[in-house]
C-alpha cells in the first residue's frame, strides 16, 4: 500500500516522517520486532542502555522512513516523492560500508541533532533533526549504542537522492538551518522528568508532533506562535490539536488521548487514518502507559488556538439520518455505469458498512459518520483522503480496515465527480453541511496522494 508518497515540498523541507505510509505489512511485522541483544554476557548496565535505545527509536519512529516496503528494518530505500524529485531514505543499519557502522558517537550525534552527515554534507530536513535536536546527550548515546549493537547490519545500498535545482544544493540547507528554530537539547536523565516535562520531551524531541501539526512560515519553519494549530500536508490535513474546545481537541479527556494514541480510535470521536495511523501503528501504540499519560498531559496543557474553520468541536457534529427512499428505479443494464447522485453513491458504497443511517456498527469497528472528527471537520480533506485511500491500521492487536475507492481499488473505483458528490452528501447529512467540494478539489488531493 504505497499510498502516501507525495507530500508537498513545504512539508518535505520542514522535515516529516510521513513517508512511512508506504510500509508494507510484512515490513511492519519485521520492523516492530527489532533484533534484541542476545542474552549475552553484557553487563546489566549495557543491557539497560540498549533497551532504552530501542524504546527511544520507537518513540522517535525512525523505522517509519528508514525501511522500505518489504525491506529489511532500517536498511532505508523508502522513496518520498516530492515535486523536486524523490528523497530516498538511507541505510542506518550498522553496516560499515552501506550503513552507519563507521560513525562515531559524535558523528551520529551530529547527524541526529544537527543534520550533518559524517562526510560533512547536509541532510535534507525530511530527517526531523530540528526536533531530534532536543534529545538529551544520554538518550543520543543510548540510541547510538542500540543502532550499533542491536540492529542487524544490512550490506545493501539505497538509491541516491537526486533533487532538482535549487533543492539539489545540499549546501543551501546551511542557510535554512540558520533561520529555522531548533529544539534546544534537554538535559539530565529524561526518564526522571516530571509528567509535563516528560510529555513535552516525547512530543517534541522524540515524537516530533509539530512537524505535521504546526503550520509553517514562508521559510517553511514551524510557526511557534501557532504550535499544533493544524496544517495541511498537501493531501491529508494534520488537524488543530491544541486545547481549544472548539477548534482543537480541548473536549477530549486525558484518557481519550491515551486511548487514541494506543489504539488509533475513540468511539464517537475519531479514528486515525493516513499518516497518523502509521504513527499510532509504529510508535505510540508501543509506548508505556506512563509515557502515554505524560504525552496526553502535555498535549492537554498546550495553549488553545482557535481554528479558522472549525468553530464547533469536529467530533460533536451530526446525528443519525436515513438515506431518502431511492429504491424506485428497476435494475439498469450491466453496461450502464452512469455516475450516480450523492444518496445513491452513499447507498451503494457506504451504507453496507456504515449503515443506512450512518450509525456504523455497535462496537464501532465500523464507526458512525456523525460524531466523527473526519466528517465534522470544516476541511473536507481527510474525508476525501479516507475515501480515496481507505484505512489500514493495526494497533494494540486490532486491525481496522476500510477499502480505498481510488483508481487502484478492487472494491470500487470512484471518479472525482462521484467522490465530490459523496463527500457533499455525507457532510450535508452527518456533518456541518454541504461543503460544495468540487471534482477539481478531489483531483488535486488524488494527485497529491500519489
Amino acid at each position: 500500500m504505497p499510498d502516501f508518497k507525495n507530500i508537498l515540498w513545504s512539508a518535505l523541507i520542514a522535515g516529516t516522517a510521513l513517508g512511512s505510509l508506504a510500509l508494507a505489512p510484512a515490513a511492519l511485522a519485521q520492523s516492530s520486532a527489532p533484533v534484541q541483544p542476545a542474552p549475552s554476557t553484557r553487563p546489566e548496565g549495557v543491557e539497560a542502555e540498549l533497551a532504552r535505545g530501542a524504546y527511544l527509536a520507537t518513540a522517535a519512529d525512525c523505522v517509519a522512513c528508514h525501511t522500505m516496503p518489504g525491506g529489511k528494518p532500517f536498511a532505508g530505500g523508502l522513496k518520498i516523492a516530492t515535486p523536486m524529485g524523490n528523497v530516498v531514505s538511507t541505510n542506518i543499519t550498522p553496516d560499515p560500508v552501506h550503513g552507519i557502522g563507521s560513525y562515531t558517537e559524535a558523528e551520529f550525534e551530529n547527524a541526529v541533532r544537527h543534520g550533518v552527515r559524517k562526510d560533512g554534507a547536509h541532510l535534507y530536513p525530511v530527517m526531523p533533526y530540528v526536533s531530534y535536536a532536543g534529545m538529551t546527550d544520554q538518550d543520543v548515546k543510548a540510541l547510538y549504542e542500540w543502532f550499533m549493537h542491536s540492529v542487524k547490519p544490512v550490506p545493501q545500498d539505497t538509491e541516491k537522492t537526486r533533487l532538482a535545482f535549487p533543492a539539489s544544493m545540499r549546501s543551501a540547507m546551511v542557510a535554512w538551518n540558520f533561520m529555522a528554530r531548533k529544539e534546544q537539547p534537554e538535559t539530565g536523565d529524561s526518564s526522571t522528568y516530571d509528567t509535563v516535562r516528560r510529555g513535552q520531551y516525547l512530543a517534541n524531541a522524540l515524537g516530533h508532533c509539530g512537524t505535521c501539526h504546526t503550520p509553517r512560515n514562508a521559510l517553511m519553519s514551524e510557526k511557534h506562535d501557532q504550535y499544533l494549530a493544524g496544517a495541511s500536508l498537501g493531501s491529508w490535513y494534520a488537524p488543530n490539536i491544541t486545547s481549544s474546545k472548539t477548534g482543537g481537541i480541548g473536549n477530549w479527556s486525558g484518557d481519550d488521548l491515551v486511548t487514541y494514541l494506543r489504539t488509533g480510535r475513540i468511539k464517537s470521536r475519531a479514528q486515525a487514518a493516513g499518516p497518523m495511523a502509521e504513527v499510532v501503528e509504529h510508535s505510540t501504540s508501543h509506548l508505556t502507559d506512563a509515557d502515554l499519560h505524560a504525552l496526553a498531559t502535555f498535549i492537554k496543557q498546550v495553549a488553545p488556538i482557535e481554528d479558522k474553520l472549525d468553530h464547533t468541536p469536529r467530533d460533536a457534529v451530526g446525528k443519525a439520518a436515513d438515506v431518502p427512499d431511492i429504491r424506485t428505479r428497476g435494475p439498469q443494464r450491466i453496461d450502464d455505469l452512469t455516475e450516480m447522485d450523492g444518496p445513491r453513491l452513499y447507498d451503494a458504497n457506504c451504507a453496507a458498512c456504515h449503515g443506512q443511517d450512518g450509525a456504523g456498527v455497535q462496537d464501532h469497528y465500523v464507526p458512525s459518520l456523525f460524531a466523527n472528527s473526519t466528517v465534522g471537520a470544516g476541511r473536507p480533506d481527510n474525508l476525501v483522503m479516507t475515501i480515496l485511500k481507505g484505512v489500514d491500521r493495526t494497533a494494540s492487536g486490532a486491525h481496522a480496515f476500510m477499502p480505498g475507492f481510488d483508481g487502484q481499488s478492487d472494491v470500487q473505483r470512484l471518479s472525482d465527480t462521484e467522490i465530490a458528490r459523496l463527500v457533499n452528501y455525507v457532510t450535508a447529512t452527518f456533518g456541518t453541511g454541504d461543503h460544495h467540494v468540487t471534482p477539481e478539489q478531489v483531483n488535486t488531493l488524488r494527485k497529491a496522494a500519489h
Partner: protein
Amino acid sequence: MSSEQTLSADVVIVGSGVAGASIANELARAGISVIVLEAGPRVDRQHFVENFRTLENKPSYQGPFPSVPWAVHPPNQMTPNAYLHTTGPDAEAYQQVYLRMMGGTTWHWAGCAWRYLPSDFELKTRYGQGRDWALKYDDLEPFYYQAEVMMGVCGPDPAKEDLGSPRKQPYPMEALPISYAAQQFRKLIDEKTPWRVVHEPQARNTRPYDARPTCEGHNNCMPICPIGAMYNGSYSVYHAEAAGAKFIPNAVVYKIERDSANKRVTGVQYYDPDKQSHRVTGKYFVIAAHCIETAKLLLVSADEQSPEGVANSSGHVGRNMMDHTGVQVTFISGDKALWPGRGPLLTNVIDSFRDGDWRNERGAYLVHMVDDNQVDLATQLAISKGYVGRELEEQIRYLASHTVRLFSHNEALPDPENRLTLSKTQKDVLGIPHPEVYYKLPEYTVKSCDHTRSVFRELIGLMHGTDEQWTPGYFPQDHPSGSTIMGTDPKTSVVDGHCRTHDHENLFIASSSVFSTVGTGNITLTVAALALRVADTLKKELLHA
C-alpha cells in the same frame, strides 16, 4: 467489415472470468504480452449493489445483471429460457445461469472454494465409473494452493478438520466462524446421526486481505457481495491490467482461425456491438469463456477445414455435459429457532457422502444447509396459510426463524449423449446461434439423488419438520462442465492433461468444460487451479523457447 488495425499479443485469451483473468495476470506479471477479449462490458460493483437494492425479486440472482444484447446471458433458471435452450427428459435440470461480463460469473457465486478429492480424478480406476482425468490430484496441488492465495480462501485447520484433499500449506485465512443456525444444525448432526458437518472453504475474507475488507455477513453473496469481501474475477482483471495486460470489453469472438495444416491457431475474430469485425493474432490462444460459451465458440468456428468445429476431431466438443444437479427441500423446523440468514450464505456442509465404495454404483454428493434469509419464503407461506394482521406478522417472524433449506450437489457422469449443439432456429443480434443442450440425468446421478432424498427425509424427521416444499424434479446447480472433456486419447477427448487441445498445439482451454468427471465440490477453485497450471505451461514455453 474488418478494422484496419490487427491486434496482436503473445497470448490471446477469450473470456475474463476467474480462468481467463488469472491466466492474464500471471502472464502479464511475467512480462508476456496479453490481450483479453471479453464479450460483455466493463462493469463495477456499485451499480450492481443499486440494482440489487431496487430489485423486487431478491432471490433472483440473475436479476441485478440485465445483459447487453450483443452478449446475452441466461436471464433466469426458468423453462423456456430465452437464451440457453434445453431439451430432453431432464431439460429443466439443466437450466444453468452464468454471466457474460468483466469478471464473469464469480460476481454472483457464493465463494465455495473446494479442492476435489484425489479419488475424484480417478473415478474409473477406483470405482469403474465414468472416466479418469489425464492428471492426478498431486499434479494440481500446488496450483490449488496458488489459486487459494490468489482468491483469498479461508478454511479449517487440516489437523482439526481434514476435508480429504491433502494440503502442503494451511489455508491462507482461518475458517469462517460457523453461524448460529449452522451451529444448531451441526449439533443435531453430531448427536443424532453418523454424519458430520464441516466448515466450508470459502473465497471470502476472514481478515483484511488483498486490500479488501473482512466479510460482515450481509448474507447476499448471491447476487452481489456489497463490500468486496468475496473474491470475484474482476480483481484478477484489475491486477492483470496493472501488470500490463490489455483488456478489451464488448468483443464477441465468433471465429477461431487456423493455419493451412489445421495444426495451429493463427487468430481470432470478434464482433464489436455494431457488428464490426476485428482480428486478433497471437502465438498462443486460450479459450476461457465458461463451459457453455467455450463449446459454442468451438462449434461456431466450423468451416470447410473443420466441418464439425474447431478442436473437434474427436466429435466430443459439446458432449459429456455435466452438472451437480441435485435435490432441494425447505421445511419448518419444529425445534427451537435457527434464525438463518446471519452471516454468509454458505458456511457449512455435510461431507459424509463425498466418497465411498458405493461410488461404484451411485454418485457422491455434498449437502449444504443454506444459511440464507428466509423472510421472503416465510411471508409467502404465512400468506398462503391465510394469516392476516398481527398474526401474519407473528407467523412471518416464526417461520423465518424456523425455516431450513437443504440442497445437494450430486455427481454426474460424462455421457456423450448429453450434448450442447447450436440452435438451428435461435440467433442473437450478431447472428450467432444460441446454445441448446439435450440433457438426461445419468442413472448414476438419479440413484445419488434418491439417496439424498432419503437423507433429507431423515433430517426433516429429526428436526420435527413440517411444511416440506421439495423443488420439483431436480435442482440445477449452475456448475456446467465436460463440454471439451480432458483425456489421454485424442479420439475420445478434446484436451490433454495440460488443457491443450489435442488438435491444435497452441490452443488451450481454461474452463470447467475440461472436467472429465465433476466430483461434488463447487467447481470454481478447480477451474482456477487448472487455469494457473495453463499459465505455468505457457510461461515455460514462451520464456524458455
